[in-house]
């Protein structure tokens, strides 16, 4: 009886859980002296559970790839301190219930905590969802992050090289887990 109930609960929750391991996160810093861009292709895990409307994203900091590897080393070593804080997270709730079974394109927002560099802040992230047949959702969006909000120290000498606000964009295909 207990096992049967548990199985039922599991299947009902998991059928509404959508996962991705192909989430791509990019960031772009547009400062007067230097434009810096990086891409994270294989360091992200994320799921959305429509039963509870909860969203979870985990980003491996070492997964960010820069065209200039010295920059990548400094990003890990001095700015994000990935040896201390190897992951960035988002954990939140969808602001409104989402018609994830009706094909179409929808705007979606989630409110929750972003954790970067060990600092947690409440943010609202917005994006666009495209619902495709056979339990496939395509998500994309962008938001701005101020490095100083997350205690990422930028020396005064480098103010001209690193933007005050860094644009982060994300793109991923979520599949129903069943």
């Amino acid at each position: 009886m207990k096992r049967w109930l548990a199985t039922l609960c599991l299947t009902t929750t998991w059928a509404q859980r959508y996962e991705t391991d192909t989430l791509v996160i990019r960031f772009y810093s547009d400062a007067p002296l230097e434009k810096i861009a990086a891409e994270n292709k294989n360091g992200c895990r994320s799921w959305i559970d429509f039963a509870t409307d909860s969203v979870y994203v985990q980003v491996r900091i070492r997964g960010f790839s820069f065209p200039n590897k010295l920059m990548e080393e400094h990003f890990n070593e001095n700015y994000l301190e990935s040896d201390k804080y190897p992951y960035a997270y988002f954990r939140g709730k969808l602001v409104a219930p989402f018609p994830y079974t009706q094909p179409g394109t929808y705007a979606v927002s989630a409110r929750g905590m972003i954790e970067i560099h060990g600092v947690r802040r409440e943010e609202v992230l917005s994006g666009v969802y495209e619902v495709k047949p056979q339990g496939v959702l395509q998500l994309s969006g962008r938001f701005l992050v101020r490095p100083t909000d997350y205690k990422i120290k930028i020396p005064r000498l480098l103010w001209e090289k690193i933007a005050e606000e860094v644009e982060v964009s994300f793109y991923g295909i979520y599949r129903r887990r069943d």
Partner: protein
Amino acid sequence: MDRHRLSSVNPCTRIKTLSYRKVLLVLIWIKLDCCSFISIAWGQTLEERVPVLATFKGTRLYNFHTTEIPAAHHLEFRVAHRFGDLTQGYRNFFGIDAGATVRVSLGYSPLNWAEVGIERTGIGKWWNGYLKLRLLRQTEPGGIPISMTWITSAFVTEVQDSVRYPTFSDRWEYLHQLLIARKFSRSVSLLAGALVLHQNMALETSLPNTWGWALLGARLKLTSRLTVFAEGCLPLWKRSVLPSYRLPWSAGTEIETGGHVFQIGLTNAEGLSENRTLLTQRFLLRLGFNISRIFSFQGGPVYGP
């Protein structure tokens, strides 16, 4: 007795209470199931093994190589300056009046584990080329405990001295280095190495053509952009071979200014190229600095907005 009492209870109520407890249990279990993934993932531990970054800030500690090499398709341009003898004091402004001798280096990594380089040194007019191979790379958490790098350099001097170098082949010298380093913590990295120098024409008649040294180096990171370092070489020979020999050492600080690494140091080395730094005989102290800049030739799109 107990069993008897239970059985006397109305069976309907019993099932009711039990199912209620079961539902509660299942609810708690679901709640746990939803949260467990989050709670595990919120803990900041790395789930996979990655190479340790930045054991040293640059490819040289000061006079000698470290285990670091530039990433694939990156070019390092490096200029080392050494001023005159500091021990003469204010008379020549601590060596700065004597002007600086310069060593220019250019190194390119075609692969993530191999670098080729060419250098020109003012003191002794030495040209040298080197091949630097990364043999092992320290990983964390666990895995490979050390980084290991092999360097082979060939030196040739432009100096045409029929007494010192009777033939062209006498002007060649070769240096092989096996370096081992470990980053012990965020701030402490240690370096140890074995060096073998072969001179086609030995510097002194008492000196054999081939000799070995042990290299020791350390780096202490004070802030994210400032470190202090020290290095020294111990010859693996008897003192009588070269009585005037002085152990070459250097110490200083390095500052990283986003792209550049700037090293200011003090050394007792007579030469500036490794083959002459190792064979220091005169007592002197030199102030100096190294500048390094890395250029990326790695293709790839720049992701704009």
